[in-house]
């Protein structure tokens, strides 16, 4: 998949991107509204891409069952209604008209259109935005099954949404197009360095932004991430470059209640509000900060975290 670069008043909005998409590996791109539109405008080929836009609505007067029947017939699939309704977990709602569903269920039913797509690639804009927890789980399960046969690309402005069902996540913003390291791998067991803690009394984290050197007290920091080899310190929704490596930072911040929750992330445990379980094997941490932030949590680190928190 290839995107052509887009300029606006001499400013590069979208760099030239080449995405290698494979089966069984959904890709997520975290970006803003404007860039989402630019990306979507490049999916013009209807035989190649099925594009699900956030503004999609549904035939309000049909019942759920009638809608699914229509979609089966119009796409000429050989599925039977009853097993499909079971698969979608819509048995209880089958006689309800679309307009009488709750807004989360209505969105879920609308999203099912992607199930009937015949194109090899499915592109979804903000699929999880209007969904409640339960419907998210159902839809994630369906997308996981779909990804065995189709390439799936999710465009969202929310990291948490991307984490739910993407295996590879990229961030596209004014600084370009970069992969985020969210992969949950167990082989990268870091050797925890023995550090002489006794003489550390004062610890500032020095960061750089626009040529200025900015010092933060550790409790101010929300979390630290490694993107493309560079270290970003997140404070109050903003991010700052740091010259130290994650391992160095981890050692320094251990005494301030920081925790290496993932190969590429260090989180300030004082700010963690919630441990989110998506499936048995994927977790993330939601932070209690001004801007809603979510950080991935490795499966291998979950146990360590539980011990640390005495739970």
């Amino acid at each position, binding site marked *: 998949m290839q995107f052509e670069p887009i300029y606006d008043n001499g400013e590069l909005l979208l760099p030239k991107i080449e995405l290698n998409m494979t089966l069984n590996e959904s890709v997520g791109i975290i970006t803003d509204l404007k860039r989402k539109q630019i990306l979507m405008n490049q999916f013009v080929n209807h035989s190649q891409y099925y594009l699900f836009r956030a503004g*999609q609505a549904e*035939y309000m*007067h049909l019942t759920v069952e009638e809608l699914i029947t*229509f979609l089966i017939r*119009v796409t000429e699939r050989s599925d039977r209604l009853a097993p499909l309704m079971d698969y979608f977990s819509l048995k209880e709602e089958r006689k309800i008209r679309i307009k009488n569903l709750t807004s989360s269920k209505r969105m879920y039913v609308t999203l099912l259109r992607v199930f009937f797509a015949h194109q090899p690639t499915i592109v979804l804009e903000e699929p999880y935005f209007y969904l409640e927890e339960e419907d998210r789980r159902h839809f994630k399960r369906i997308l996981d099954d779909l990804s065995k046969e189709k390439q799936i690309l999710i465009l969202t402005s929310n990291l948490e949404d991307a984490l739910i069902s993407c295996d590879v996540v990229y961030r596209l913003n004014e600084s370009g197009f970069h992969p985020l390291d969210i992969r949950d791998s167990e082989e990268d067991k870091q050797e925890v360095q023995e550090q002489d803690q006794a003489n550390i009394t004062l610890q500032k984290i020095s960061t750089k932004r626009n040529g200025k050197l900015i010092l933060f007290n550790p409790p101010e920091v929300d979390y630290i991430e490694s993107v493309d080899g560079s270290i970003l310190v997140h404070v109050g929704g903003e991010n700052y470059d740091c010259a130290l490596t994650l391992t160095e930072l981890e050692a320094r911040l251990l005494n301030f209640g920081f925790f290496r929750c993932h190969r590429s992330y260090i989180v300030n445990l004082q700010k963690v509000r919630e441990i989110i379980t998506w499936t048995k094997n994927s977790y993330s941490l939601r932070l209690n900060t001004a801007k809603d932030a979510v950080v991935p949590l490795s499966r291998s680190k979950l146990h360590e975290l539980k011990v640390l928190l005495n739970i």
Partner: protein
Amino acid sequence: MSISLKRAWAIFVKDYKEFSRNYAVSFSVIVPILFAFLFRSAGPSLPGAIGFLLNTSFVLLTCLVQACLIAEEKERNTLRSLMMTPATTMDVLIGKSTLVFVVSAAALTIAIYILGYKPTSMWAFVAAIILSIILYTAAGTICGLFSKTLLEASLSIMPVALVFTGAPWGVLLADNFPLFKVLEYAPSVQLVHLLTLHNAGFTTGDLLKPLLIMLAWAALLTIASVMLYQRRLKDE
């Protein structure tokens, strides 16, 4: 372009359910029947009653329903989604137009029966009705494509109402305004001509001329609506 009757049928069934449950739109079925009762009480001697009834119903029923069906799909972005399924332009248009045709034909049959109108030439009358429904459906498609919402669609049929339903009156002014002579060729005027032919003394030519003009309108509008449909949906 491939046409699949299976897909067109699926669209027909879906649209029938949507149409019958959306009372704001399906209410327009009442229009011809209401007029029929109104004119019946005035007596069969009322001249031009059948012409007025038909010409009004074609706009307020056939044209309006078709425009609403298309605009509603555009409003909810389901038409765009439909384009990404195997369903082709013709599948969608045939499915919708068939529904509108069946609904219009049924409502008009009931209305004519209530009114008690007896056509001079049955085959010419039926042919004229069929051609009219087709041409007004195509006009409705064009209206629907020019509007983004259901509300816009119900207003967009105003020009059709003015030009087609208004034409028989416009012709009356032709003596003062020579420009209005063009309206002579409007399908609604031709329909009125056909209806006012009396038992005594008409030739097959008298019947054929209006029918041919209406056929030309139907063909022209249908081709225009299909082309416009493909063009409009390309830039979505």
